[in-house]
């Protein structure tokens, strides 16, 4: 069925909503990346099977919903019973029967599956009351985890595509742009460029055709917000893109997605087909005379293709090497035509801005960074997952109030934001407000939203080395400062980690970093030294410990550590012996074991498996 007019869209919404409300009680099964990795698909299959077999009155498989990422990945697989928001954590296939018997047949609660907050020992029934959720404000992630992933009927039922209808029928392109400018929305991919201004520039350029691109090449390791949106709520991105296309007068759009996200590719493709079938994409959308269509372009696994000019070349089937930006891609972008490129999360915000107004959006967050920001809160933090908070929330609130602090209550060392281009911030910076400008001033950056918490067992030299290695691998090699500079910077970082470096080497590294920043062509090189610069700025002592004392305080850098077994504690369980791939550990059962240092390659396997803390790193 094709929707020809706006009133038909309204009718469809009514029908869909009625159909949705037919099932007052629904079971939401989180099928986000985290829960899937823990077996959510099997749980969903079991629910379907048991519900089919049991034939419960007033409940059918239609009330089972596989949703996108609900956010609290650490507690997954998650199952939520609506409308009460009963929140079951770490669900296993064998729990399914009990959930159905107790929560669906009898409307009671399976106490043992509820969430208990480690901080205060309190058990919660309704997820909305859990601190992890309570302190969040979800705009870009508004639908994820609440509706079936990739289901246009449910998306329309909860008001989807109405903002698009409003823009296309009641607003002139300039009015849409003004609204987005008023909202203060800044690019959520990390750059933070005002979205409205970008659209305004593109709309003014006298050249055709114009293109709208969505950057779904979420390359920052440690970030998965865009993945969650593309998989869980692809229609919000499509709707945002249609509104952008209307604003700048474009008829062709591309979504560039990483190949590493196969489900995102599938769901986006499916969502586009659903929208095309209803006439929400294609020719004469809703009878307004406006034509716009979207194609999915799969990335080839190159980090540099997150950069605008490289991405556009990649969409055109070329090698993704960035070019100098004397002429910006808004003017000459894809196929050398005017192009608007925005991030997934930016587009997901647009429909809400059009529906509720720019003023409403700008009332959230800080004066210069409005709205909210999604983060993937990961690393050595207790509550890992996907969150969205108003701009201006402090790092401390995110890590401690939402994140529940560091795992095993170890000392906090640093939080890394902004991916390979960002930096590490120490404990004394935890009171900083999370917004574009504050983080940049502190030597890190907002980035796309990865927030990686590190404890005292994480070595900052190792982290800097890790990011530099990543950037060497991903540098396209076009310009010398990036290609050779990062290579040398990495070599020096390796020297530090192996205790071979001198203090002069640190000066050299700082000087070299300066030159890389000045001389590189694109953002990859320009921000490449950041992981080093931010760690040396805040953790110079740790670098010096490697250089002067030949010691890695975190016990990570292999050349400087030794693993030892404490014979007093070791009970001879043999776990480390079987874990060691180098046969470096000897000993009999129930007798203390011993590590032969000549054979040990310090891989840490024994340390990881020892249940008795008998192995120490010195």
């Amino acid at each position: 069925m094709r929707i020809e007019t706006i009133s038909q869209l309204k009718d469809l919404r009514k029908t869909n909503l009625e159909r949705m409300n037919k099932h007052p009680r629904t079971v939401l099964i989180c099928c986000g990346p985290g829960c899937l990795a823990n077996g959510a698909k099997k749980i969903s299959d079991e629910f379907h099977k048991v519900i089919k077999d049991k034939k419960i009155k007033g409940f059918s498989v239609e009330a089972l919903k596989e949703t996108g990422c609900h956010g609290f990945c650490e507690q997954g697989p998650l199952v939520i019973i609506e409308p009460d928001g009963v929140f079951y954590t770490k669900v296993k296939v064998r729990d399914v029967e009990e959930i159905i018997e107790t929560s669906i047949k009898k409307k009671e609660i399976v106490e043992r599956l509820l969430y208990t907050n480690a901080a205060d020992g309190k058990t919660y029934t309704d997820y909305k009351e859990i601190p992890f959720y309570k302190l969040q404000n979800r705009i870009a992630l508004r639908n994820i985890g609440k509706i079936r992933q990739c289901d246009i009927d449910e998306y329309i039922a909860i008001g989807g595509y109405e903002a698009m209808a409003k823009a296309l029928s009641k607003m002139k392109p300039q009015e849409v742009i003004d609204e987005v400018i008023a909202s203060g929305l800044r690019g959520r991919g990390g750059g933070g460029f005002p979205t409205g201004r970008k659209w305004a520039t593109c709309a003014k350029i006298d050249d055709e055709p114009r293109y709208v691109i969505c950057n779904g090449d979420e390359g920052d390791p440690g970030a998965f917000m865009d993945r969650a949106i593309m998989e869980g709520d692809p229609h919000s991105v499509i709707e945002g893109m249609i509104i952008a296309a209307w604003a700048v007068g474009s008829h062709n759009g591309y979504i560039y997605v990483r190949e590493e996200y196969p489900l995102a590719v599938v769901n986006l493709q499916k969502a586009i087909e659903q929208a095309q079938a209803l006439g929400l994409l294609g020719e004469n959308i809703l009878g307004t005379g406006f034509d716009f269509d979207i194609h999915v372009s799969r990335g080839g696994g190159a980090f540099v293709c997150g950069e605008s000019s490289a991405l556009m070349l990649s969409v055109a089937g070329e090698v993704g090497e960035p070019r100098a930006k004397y002429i910006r891609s808004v003017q000459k972008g894809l196929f050398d035509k005017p192009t608007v490129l925005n991030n997934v999360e930016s587009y997901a915000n647009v429909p809400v801005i059009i529906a509720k107004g720019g003023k409403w959006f700008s009332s959230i967050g800080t004066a210069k960074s409005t709205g909210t920001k999604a983060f993937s809160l990961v690393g050595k933090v207790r509550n890992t997952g996907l969150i969205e908070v108003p701009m201006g929330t402090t790092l401390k609130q995110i890590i401690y109030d939402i994140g529940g602090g560091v795992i095993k209550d170890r000392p906090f060392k640093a939080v890394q934001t902004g991916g390979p281009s960002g930096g590490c911030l120490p404990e004394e910076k935890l009171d900083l407000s999370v917004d574009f400008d504050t983080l940049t001033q502190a030597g890190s950056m907002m980035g796309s939203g990865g927030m990686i918490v590190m404890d005292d067992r994480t070595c900052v030299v190792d982290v800097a080395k890790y990011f530099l290695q990543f950037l060497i691998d991903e540098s396209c090699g076009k310009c010398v400062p990036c290609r050779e500079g990062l290579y040398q910077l990495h070599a020096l970082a390796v020297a530090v980690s192996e205790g071979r470096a001198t203090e002069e080497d640190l000066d050299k590294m700082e000087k070299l970093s300066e030159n890389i920043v000045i001389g590189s062509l694109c953002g990859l090189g320009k921000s490449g030294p950041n992981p080093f610069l931010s760690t040396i700025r805040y953790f110079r002592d740790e670098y010096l410990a490697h250089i002067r004392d030949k010691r890695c305080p975190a016990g990570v850098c292999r050349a400087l550590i030794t693993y030892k077994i404490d014979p007093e504690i070791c009970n001879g369980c043999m776990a480390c012996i079987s874990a060691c791939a180098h046969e470096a550990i000897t000993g009999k059962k129930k007798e203390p074991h011993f590590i032969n240092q000549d054979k040990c390659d310090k891989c840490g396997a024994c340390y990881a498996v020892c249940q008795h803390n008998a192995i120490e790193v010195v």
Partner: protein
Amino acid sequence: MKHDFSKLPEIFDRYPSAPESLIAVLQDIQKEYNFLPCHALEETAKRLGVPLSKVFSVSTFYNAFSLNPKGEKVIRICVGTTCHIRGSKQIQQQLENLLKIKAGETTEDGKFSIEVVACVGACAMAPVVAVNDEFHGGVTVANVKRLVKTNKKD
């Protein structure tokens, strides 16, 4: 090794015969054969009207493409930041030791390949290892062994 190239025309038909289809076509070929056979690259160049040198350049630029055959089961170790600080390096080593190949290589019997990938976006479950399309979260040095064992049996 002989390959059945009869699927190539079907792959070509999925996309317009234009240079901008190059990456998409190569991705589908990679998916079909688990690598990019030389003959397929030549055919692609002819079909899309791009020089073979450019097909080669694109094939070697992007990580998704491989010019060497991959194993039946590709074990991908996520080495994203979160997985790194949660010990993916140890897991990589354990896997390399168990299968007696390095990352980027394939076992002699053609059963397994090990690859490292910079973030699969399941950071909350770090460290993550994927066997073909099946993801395993919270992998430890101890359960890597079991993972290899069960996959060897299949």
